[in-house]
């Protein structure tokens, strides 16, 4: 039938040079096929290319043994077929929704002799249209709803045969004498197992699929097996539902099929249930007495097919038929060949726990791999159930522990306090200018954040360090102030442009009140307030400002809450956790400024000349005069 290679008879769907396309991105199935080819000692891979209409990718990397090889990925069937005229098999992995159109398209190309349809849930009407057209064109359809089929030593359809260990265990790398056809894909693997244990092995096996209208049925493949001289025994695994077994019975009765058949139809239990049960396969429901498994088994038995008492007895029945043929000299068992080794895939070996390798990254705070996302071990549903708030989430992710609710509240308070401080401060200014230059949210936000450092927003870190050091080294507040002045250093966290002792900053009052009320100890805050007493006596606006107050309170929290060791506290402070608080809080404000400017549709900002003093030219002039 093949136009391309007339040296292969029609009964031979697959041979040791069969070339195929995989329709759909199925790297695992594809690799499985290549591994099978390799282990069968095929000279070339059985997959010539991948057809994937949504692809942007042009090659797919695969292994051929231990070496890597590239498979072309085509976006159109036309291109694939014209580049590979020797391909006559397509394994179609398209979904149940798109398999109809893709198969109908494939059928327009006469070079494809065999198409396997893997998808489950293809509408019955569409499946019938496919098989009708395929029949007209002389194309063999395997499926839908199947794993495919396998021909040891030649070709493996997709995932048939399972993993390589099973292929080796069932000796599917070399041909035997028993060909089978089964409805179920899962059970086909079971047949591989049974046949390899009881006979010289599988010659070929096809799973026609569990749907009501498989593209080819038992009889189509059994007729091929009958015609193929290398097949000596046929195994048929039928099922309740449909009448396809009767066509085999008829062919046996009229002498078309003469080779021994061992058969069983599963689903004998169906008649014992009171109401109709839809089994796992869509086609497995008896619409009449004729379609029951029991009726089929007795009809097959009556026709002279070997049908065991139960399915559990099938291996023994098969073994008997095999031994008879061996005695008659029909089958001569061949010497076993050595199995070539296939390296284990890294991912698989890791899953089996066979290998280990040091990881390049370590993460200890959140995990997205399990049932649900977790923060420091707390599942996200718990986070919401316990309503731990942003402060709670920060305590989990920043400190890897669940802090008491007053601490979480304090963190939230800091975020709220630092969220914004008007448009004039440098961070907001940068954001506004960037936004007005037409940049996006992230650029504008980052432009603002980049100003945060020792001068802008950095007072938190500085204040925490200076106050802590002074307190820990036993300096009295007055000694601390004096030391700083001698060093000509400003005390970070002290001083405000407008606010003073008599005109207090309400933000500071809020923090102080909360901390005094909730924290187990406020030693550093008390110390800072004493420092404030010293400084305000010199100048009224040298008050403990909001940065300073937050900073010392935060240190109090870490030291007194009992949740941190002294080393941890020091490390967190050193690593800039306070800056983190400011960055996080102020991001709220910077985003707000960005959105505000966007909303106002402000145009590109250009600073007025009169606001810049240009002295560059004059300096140059002065320099020249000096010369």
């Amino acid at each position, binding site marked *: 039938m093949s136009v391309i290679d007339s040296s292969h008879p029609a009964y031979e769907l697959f041979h040791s040079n069969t070339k195929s396309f995989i329709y759909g991105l199925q790297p*695992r199935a594809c690799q499985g096929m290549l591994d099978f080819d390799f282990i069968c000692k095929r000279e070339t891979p059985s997959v010539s290319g991948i057809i994937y209409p949504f692809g942007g990718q042009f090659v797919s990397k695969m292994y051929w043994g231990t070496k890597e090889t590239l498979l072309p990925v085509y976006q159109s069937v036309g291109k694939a077929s014209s580049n590979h005229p020797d391909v006559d098999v397509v394994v179609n992995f398209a979904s*149940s*929704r798109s398999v109809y159109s893709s198969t109908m398209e494939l059928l327009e190309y006469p070079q494809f002799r065999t198409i396997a349809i893997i998808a*489950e*849930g*293809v*509408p*019955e*009407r*569409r499946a*019938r*249209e496919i*098989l*009708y*057209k395929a029949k007209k064109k002389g194309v063999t359809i395997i499926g839908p709803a199947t794993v495919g089929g396998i021909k040891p030593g030649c070709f493996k359809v997709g*995932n*048939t*045969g*399972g*993993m*390589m*260990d*099973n292929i*080796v*265990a069932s000796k599917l790398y070399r041909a035997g004498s028993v060909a089978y056809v089964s*409805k*179920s*894909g*899962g*059970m086909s*693997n*079971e047949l591989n*197992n*049974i046949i390899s244990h009881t006979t010289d092995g599988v010659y070929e096996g096809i799973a026609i699929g569990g749907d*009501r*209208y498989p593209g080819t049925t038992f009889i189509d493949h059994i007729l091929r097996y009958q015609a193929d001289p290398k097949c000596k025994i046929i195994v048929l*695994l039928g099922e309740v539902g449909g009448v396809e077994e009767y066509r085999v019975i008829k062919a046996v009765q009229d002498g078309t099929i003469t080779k021994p058949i061992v058969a069983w139809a*599963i689903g004998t*239990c169906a008649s014992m*249930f*009171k*109401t109709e049960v*839809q*089994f*796992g*396969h*869509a086609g*497995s*429901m008896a619409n009449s007495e004729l379609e029951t498994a029991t009726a089929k088994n007795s009809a097959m038995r009556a026709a002279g097919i070997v049908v065991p*008492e*139960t*399915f*559990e007895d099938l*291996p023994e029945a098969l073994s008997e038929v095999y031994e008879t043929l061996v005695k008659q000299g029909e089958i001569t068992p061949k010497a076993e060949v050595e*199995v070539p*080794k296939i390296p*284990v895939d890294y991912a698989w070996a890791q*899953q*089996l726990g066979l290998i280990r390798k040091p990881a390049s990254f370590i993460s200890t705070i959140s995990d997205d791999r399990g*049932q649900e996302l977790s923060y420091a071990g707390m599942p996200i549903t718990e986070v919401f159930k316990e309503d731990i708030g942003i402060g709670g989430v920060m305590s989990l992710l920043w400190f890897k522990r669940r802090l008491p609710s007053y601490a979480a509240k304090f963190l939230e308070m800091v975020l709220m306090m630092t969220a914004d401080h008007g448009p004039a401060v440098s961070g907001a200014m940068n954001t506004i200018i960037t936004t007005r230059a037409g940049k996006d949210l992230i650029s504008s936000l980052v432009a603002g954040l980049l100003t945060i450092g020792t001068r802008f927003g950095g007072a938190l870190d500085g204040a925490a360090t200076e106050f802590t050091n002074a307190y820990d080294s036993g300096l009295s507040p007055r000694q601390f102030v004096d030391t700083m002045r001698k060093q000509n250093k400003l005390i970070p966290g002290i001083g405000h442009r407008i606010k003073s002792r008599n005109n207090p900053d309400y933000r500071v009052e809020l923090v102080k009140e909360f901390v005094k009320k909730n924290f187990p100890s406020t030693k550093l805050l008390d110390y800072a307030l004493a420092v404030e007493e010293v400084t305000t006596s010199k100048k009224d606006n040298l008050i403990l400002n909001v940065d300073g107050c937050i900073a010392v309170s935060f240190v109090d929290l870490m030291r007194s809450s009992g949740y941190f060791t002294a080393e941890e506290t020091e490390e967190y402070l050193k690593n800039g956790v306070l800056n983190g608080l400011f960055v996080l809080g102020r991001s709220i404000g910077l985003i707000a400024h960005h959105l505000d400017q966007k909303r106002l549709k402000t145009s590109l900002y250009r600073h007025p000349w009169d606001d810049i003093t240009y002295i560059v030219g004059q300096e140059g002039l002065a320099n020249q005069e000096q010369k």
Partner: protein
Amino acid sequence: MSAKSIHEADGKALLACFLPQSPVYSAIVPAETFKAGLPQLASLTFPDEASVDAVLDRAEATYPWLLTSDARFVAKPDQLIKRRGKSGLLALNKSWAECRQWISQRAARQVEVEGIAGYLRTFLVEPFVPHDQSQEYYINIHSVREGDWILFYHEGGVDVGDVDAKASKLLIPVDIDNEYPSNDAIKQALLSQVPTDQHATLLDFINRLYAVYVDLQFTYLEINPLVVIPTPSGVQVHYLDLAAKIDQTAEFECGPKWAIARSPAALGQTVPASSEKVSVDAGPAMVFPAPFGRELSSEEAYIAELDSKTGASLKLTVLNASGRIWTLVAGGGASVVYADAIASAGYASELANYGEYSGAPNETQTFEYAKTVLDLMTRSDPAACPEGKILFIGGGIANFTQVGSTFKGIIRAFRAYQDKLHSHKVRIFVRRGGPNWQEGLRLIVNAGKELDLNLEAYGPDMHVSGIVPLALLGKKPKGILPFGAGSITTNAGTPLTL
């Protein structure tokens, strides 16, 4: 997913909505003179928690035509019950008051129909169509591999007899675009025994009925009787009794159409559905009722929902909730093999469930599935079953389902039900092969030891369903030892020990 039966009311609604609009295949566009107005189908559902009167009262608001004075109705349960007339489940030519009473006496009550006990939950009330016996016909369309058979018989009704043998038949080939029969051919094949003055109407009807059958992806449609009544203005066609199956897998193609036909507007309901839930399509999604006598339990419904949400396949049917033998089997084929083996060992009546999981479900999905089975299994009083229960965790040699991860899901369910498994004296038999099976069996054997469960596990050297005769009949296959007992399968080695 497969071809599934639908309610009679839904079948009628589909026809009413789509007879005039489905694309036809005949060369001459058929008339639609037979078309009636909006359908009058009062579908009433009686859940346990609602009072029967409340449902009936609400029906009067939704279907005001029920209250038309002097109107006569037909009332019947709509639950895929065959031969309702013979079981006394058909109220013909009754007033609404009589229908109310007739339904009240039966709604939400258990009855036995042809040996099957079940609750009557869904009723259909529609106008009574007075007609003559001679106006009744039989029509049936069903799909086979080669095409769609249309069966027609010039007599209809409950006593029509063996239609397979006597009806006229016509096969419409699969390639309907090119091979649809001509009107003459249809007439010749199906209508030879029908009075010629009805030929035109019936041809139109058959052409349009078949168009709906194709358009909405029916796989089976039987109307008996089909009633054709000549009227002064033309001809009326009524489908009095209807049974239908549609292909659930075609939902992605036909779902919106099925929904439109079931929308309040298409059904002429005056009160729109009370729920304010936004549905995906123009109407509520198609319902596929469980067969009479097997109400879908909440557990089965839960698994069905889980099944519809994933690419994996999860199926559960409770056959006998008090049965001793439970199964947790992977694979569409293997699950049937297990049921067979249990039945052939003589324990069909003790088999509690049929089910399967396949298509590589993940650990959580398997856990949910296993948990549901274990819960059902250990729900009764342990004293009711002093000899204990048997659980088969079976499966073939998987092609790509990860045995390790599915077994982890099952082990999680074991942990959750450890005490109950003990108190119900559950014996567990495991057989499995496929990717990572050594690890899977090792895990489950270890879990069995840790949780002190009565558990035996086997690998692929055991026959796929060999643990069934082993457990039920004490048949030990030669040379096969449990996993972990020194047989060749015990080495949890590499997948490629070459």
